[in-house]
């Protein structure tokens, strides 16, 4: 490849970096002031793109019309941001951060389906930008004028935001609130107004970014999570809360990706390496390197001592399951084994789904409950397990061997991510796990030759012995039952106690000789393995898998199941999985917009039980022991 071609790609990378910076800057601003990481920020970007398309159609051609449509889109998205803040987040500022994040996740689902309803499933092609639709000759190569324009936009926004934050009264208020919310409010800063304004600004930036990106990339329904995952990587690399950091990180990531594309397929030591396919991996590598050297990002300060609010369930006494629990479990699984005798095939399939979901949710409960770590990308392990089993099976492995590979492969993925994850906590961890899951999803989605791309893999059926619905159900029941038993055992073994000790007080745990990071890392690996096993069972129960298997919405499903069932209750994953799977089945039959319906359910749960359902139930239960002196 020539140097000029490379330079061309770098310019392209700079243009992409601008949009990414706008999104990340908004995210960082909102976080700085409200301490909420807005998972729906990518959805605001997507809305910006779709709205710009609609306004473009309505306003017609011409320079003024085009730019009016861009600004109108940004303005409407700013209003949507204000509405989200006023209707939802305002009620959740005091809630545990896990629930804040989950709530914004609900918004993602609602916005996705709203976009589907309003604009349909087809991509919306962007307009040609009047006066900027030509190319400029640089070193004999044609460069789109619009790219050059975007390259300028990034620094202009950076300078404007910096001026706004450092030189205006509004900026002073933002900085005061970022430093110390309580003090700022005690000094008379009208917090409600400030939060609304910051949300409007942040959301407006995301909307603007989407509208500006439209001429380069058609508006589509996958934009939301793709963009938010990238924005998370950028903010984590740049340092959460730092606007210049976000700019720097967006530049670096934009350039590294451009470089990968520019390099093309290169022969390295006799092996052809297709760099363009590595762009997603490259992003992750950049993040890994930066976090290894600077755990708080390039320009980030160590996270302010956040009064991270744990769920009340994390402070309640966890009882070691006694004989009664063992008997109850035995009776329950005995009864479940009789199910094929009484229900039809449809219900058996649903029951198999519930069992698979139970194991998946239990693995998440393990790291969220005893582990105290938030995972927003747990589907990655589920999916890696499913794909590993499916691929092994299609390469001629017998079904039991293929199924056994599922937890091993998923554990490998969890070990890889866990290495970074255990250095982080709270919102950083949530952002990292989501970004990782999105990257895994993108790799599976794009790697046609191996994973079948968007079509997935088909023909993954168990051998004749297990081919019948009832026999596969019983097989699943046996495996899931054993796995749950094992998980419960681990949770109450010395390892599980050390893990809980690290969660309850990491300082104290270290002071009694517990290796906090190693313990949490192992927990990550274990949870990954169990999720992978669930994924393997899933693949053989469906006969086919698609990238949906490891998409973010599946991570949300598990999260909701855990929240429904409670972080501590042994039967929690089963109850949560049963309730949620049944609900989704009903919703899927009732409406095409089951995703939005799920989002609404999530929002309802969070708003009605701002301390978590498990916490609410814990308050209803009579206490076993007197707690006061």
């Amino acid at each position: 490849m020539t140097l000029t071609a490379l330079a061309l790609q770098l310019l392209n990378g700079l243009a992409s970096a601008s949009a990414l910076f706008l999104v990340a800057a908004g995210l960082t601003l909102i976080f700085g002031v409200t301490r909420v990481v807005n998972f729906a920020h990518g959805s605001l970007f997507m809305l910006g793109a779709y709205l710009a398309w609609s306004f473009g159609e309505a306003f017609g051609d011409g320079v003024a019309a085009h730019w009016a449509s861009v600004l109108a889109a940004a303005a409407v998205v700013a209003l949507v941001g204000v509405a989200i803040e006023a209707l939802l987040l305002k009620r959740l500022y005091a809630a545990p951060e896990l629930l804040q994040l989950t709530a914004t996740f609900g918004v993602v689902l609602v916005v996705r389906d709203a976009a589907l309803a309003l604009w349909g499933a087809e991509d919306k092609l962007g307009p040609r930008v009047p006066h900027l639709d030509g190319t400029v000759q640089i070193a004999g190569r044609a460069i789109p004028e619009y790219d050059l324009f975007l390259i300028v936009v990034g620094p202009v926004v950076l300078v404007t935001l910096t001026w706004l934050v450092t030189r205006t009264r509004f900026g002073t208020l933002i900085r005061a609130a970022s430093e110390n919310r309580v003090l700022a409010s005690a000094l008379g800063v009208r917090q409600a107004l400030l939060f609304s304004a910051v949300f409007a600004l942040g959301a407006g930036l995301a909307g603007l970014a989407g509208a500006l990106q439209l001429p380069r990339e058609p508006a589509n329904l996958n934009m939301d999570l793709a963009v938010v995952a990238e924005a998370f990587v950028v903010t984590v690399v740049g340092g959460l809360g730092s606007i210049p950091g976000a700019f720097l990180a967006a530049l670096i990531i934009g350039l590294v990706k451009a470089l990968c594309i520019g390099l093309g397929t290169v022969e390295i030591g006799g092996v052809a390496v297709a760099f363009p396919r590595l762009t997603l991996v490259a992003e992750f590598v950049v993040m890994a390197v930066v976090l290894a050297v600077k755990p708080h990002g390039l320009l980030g300060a160590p996270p302010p001592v956040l009064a991270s609010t744990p769920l009340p369930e994390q402070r309640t006494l966890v009882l070691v399951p006694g004989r009664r629990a063992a008997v109850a479990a035995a009776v329950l699984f005995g009864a479940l084994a009789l199910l094929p005798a009484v229900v039809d095939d449809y219900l058996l399939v649903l029951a198999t789904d519930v069992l698979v979901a139970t194991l998946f949710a239990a693995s998440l409960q393990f790291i969220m409950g005893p582990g105290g770590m938030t995972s927003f990308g747990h589907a990655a392990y589920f999916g890696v397990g499913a794909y590993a089993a499916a691929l092994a099976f299609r390469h001629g492995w017998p079904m039991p061997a293929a199924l056994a590979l599922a937890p091993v492969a998923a554990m490998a993925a969890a070990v890889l991510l866990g290495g970074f994850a255990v250095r982080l906590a709270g919102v950083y961890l949530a952002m990292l796990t989501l970004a990782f899951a999105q990257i895994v999803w993108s790799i599976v989605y794009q790697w046609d030759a191996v994973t079948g791309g968007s079509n997935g893999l088909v023909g993954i059926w168990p051998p004749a012995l297990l081919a019948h619905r009832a026999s596969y159900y019983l097989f699943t029941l046996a495996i899931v039952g054993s796995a749950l038993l094992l998980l419960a055992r681990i949770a109450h073994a010395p390892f599980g106690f050390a893990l809980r000790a690290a969660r309850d007080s990491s300082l104290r745990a270290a002071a009694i000789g517990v290796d906090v990071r190693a313990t949490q890392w192992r927990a990550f690996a274990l949870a990954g393995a169990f999720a992978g096993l669930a994924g393997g069972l899933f693949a053989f129960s469906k006969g086919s898998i698609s990238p949906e298997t490891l998409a973010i919405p599946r991570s949300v499903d598990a999260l909701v199941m855990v929240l429904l069932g409670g972080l501590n209750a042994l039967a929690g994953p089963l109850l949560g999985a049963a309730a949620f799977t049944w609900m989704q089945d009903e919703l899927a039959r009732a409406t095409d917009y089951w995703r939005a319906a799920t989002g609404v359910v999530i929002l309802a749960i969070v708003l009605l039980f701002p301390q978590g359902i498990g916490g609410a139930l814990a308050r209803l239960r009579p206490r076993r022991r007197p707690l006061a002196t």
Partner: protein
Amino acid sequence: MSAAPVLAVERLSKSFDGVRAVRDVSFRVSAGELCALIGPNGAGKTTCFNCVNGQLVPDEGRVWLAGVNVTGRPPREMALAGVGRTFQVAATFASMTVRENVEVALLSHAGHGEALLARASGARRAQADALLERAGIAALADRHCGALPYGDAKRVELALALAGNPKLLLMDEPTAGMAHADRDAIMATAAELARRDRVAVLFTEHDMDVVFGFADRIVVLDRGRVIADAPPDVVRADANVQAVYLGTA
């Protein structure tokens, strides 16, 4: 010839952003001795303390534990090398019973903290109950630790700190936040344990009644330097110390 002191801090220095919080600090604590580390706010107590417990790595100087150079080891390794500690704000495991708290510590020190399939609760019951007895909270064994009154939580911490049979016990403001009667009681427990088991104790403390009532020796810091290192009577009469505390020169 006497054995090496349990703790020897040797010419310790630590700066933050160019400000020298601790300069050239040296002192020793012997087995069975209660040594108080005191000084006005900003004198460098906490920095010094954190260099000994492993939370900070000193810029210069050495920390010796029973003749072994442990400078710069992280808290976990300090714990395994024989340093037990209590925190200024009592840190216990809120989701466990009092006995389980101690059992976790015992399992960890015994090297069994990683076992995946054994049973944890009740695993070291006798040993745990003996420790709770020593800390004076045997009656609370089955109580939910997260719901204990503060004074009791401090005692759970003491039991946790003793679980590894430490050579050195570090107590950061052991009586902070406690009622007066409780203060003397917990210090009396600590002092008794230290003398009986020949544990060296280093503690910081704001309450001068506690310091002069229980310390065998007092190290006084001011602006990062040691200005006195002597038994309570001598320190009480020291003109330098009086100047620092009373503001007269």
